[in-house]
């Protein structure tokens, strides 16, 4: 078992076009670190100065991680993490 990470179109240049990749870790921060080791360059697109970038939204099982624990949010095998750019509604 691993954690599935769904990658938005604009970041698939880092994953050889893959829509979803597997990664592991106990927290979101560790997960992103593991992603970086497999897909170099991805971390800098997601994290800046120790925080999620302003226009990047990350959801753990559909819930916004900013309301859970940010980069410290615990993650576990079987979870799904979805990365999306912030877009307008209305």
């Amino acid at each position, binding site marked *: 078992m691993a954690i599935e990470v769904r990658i938005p*179109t*604009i970041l698939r240049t880092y994953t050889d076009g893959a829509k979803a990749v597997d990664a592991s870790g106990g927290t979101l921060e560790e997960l992103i670190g593991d992603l970086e080791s497999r897909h170099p360059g991805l971390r800098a697109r997601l994290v800046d100065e120790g925080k999620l970038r302003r*226009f990047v*939204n990350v959801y753990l099982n559909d*819930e916004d991680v900013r309301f*859970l624990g940010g980069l410290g949010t615990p993650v576990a095998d079987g979870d799904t993490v*979805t990365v999306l750019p912030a*877009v*307008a*509604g209305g």
Partner: protein
Amino acid sequence: MRFDSLIHSVGRTPLVGLPRLSPSDEVRIWAKLEDRNPTGSIKDRPALWMIEQAEKDGLLRPGCTILEPTSGNTGISLAMSARLKGYRLICVMPENTSEERRQLLRMWGAEIISSPAAGGSNEAVRVAKGLAAEHPDWIMLYQYGNPANWRSHYESTAPEILEDLPTVTHFVAGLGTTGTLMGVGRFLRERVPGVQIVAAEPRYGELVYGLRNVDEGFIPELYDASVLTTRYSVTSADALARTRELLAAEGIFAGISTGCALHAALGMARKAVQAGERADIVFIVADGGWKYLSTGAYEGTLGEAEDRLEGQLWA
């Protein structure tokens, strides 16, 4: 109820219980029927408040041109008010929005400028800002950053909810301009200890997220995360399934963004049941289903409907 004109009949919408979808007598779900507004959506409230504020501020005078980026409902509300008050309205609208919305806008006399489908409303905002800079005499009300948007909900939607249901514990609404959640959320937080304010954000097909880079993202100026308890991303498939469930179980024919909010409301209900806590969960029915018939959302299997909705802006 009697009103001086159609514009004045905004608000005072029904709050109806969902006896079949509520898990128990202790955990109840309530629908605020915002489709019962003059042009059929919740946007009649912010549209009226924004226009009247601009009139008070001396920005709008008869004959003025209003410019607005909108995926539909705000434009339709503004078009009705603009027609009655004598303003010209130009809407910048993403091309991947339903045909009904375009027909309604034209019917009320609005002009439509299409923005590219890729990038969704982000592009509409960008195009509208460019047009506003080129035409300084046009008035852009700008729903994403106009405080009259959230104030309309603080002053009307929220007091109605609290009056009808003083025992409210949760408020759930779709996240677009963020106006509904900011306005209702602030009002309820000031008056209801422990109230939970939950955002349901539509997750569209990939086309809508087709930005050139992540720094092109967009967060409405009105958004203040501290007003929210949490925020869920709801897929088109879940939103469609809940929209149909609401119709089948409770007889409410609503637009697809309502299914999005209901999905989050049912999630909160499940959590309350698991925790053994009482809950009165209010969610917003932002509009009826009429404007989405051509999308095929209500016909065939869910999978077929989801395929037809791919790439469309449904909220």
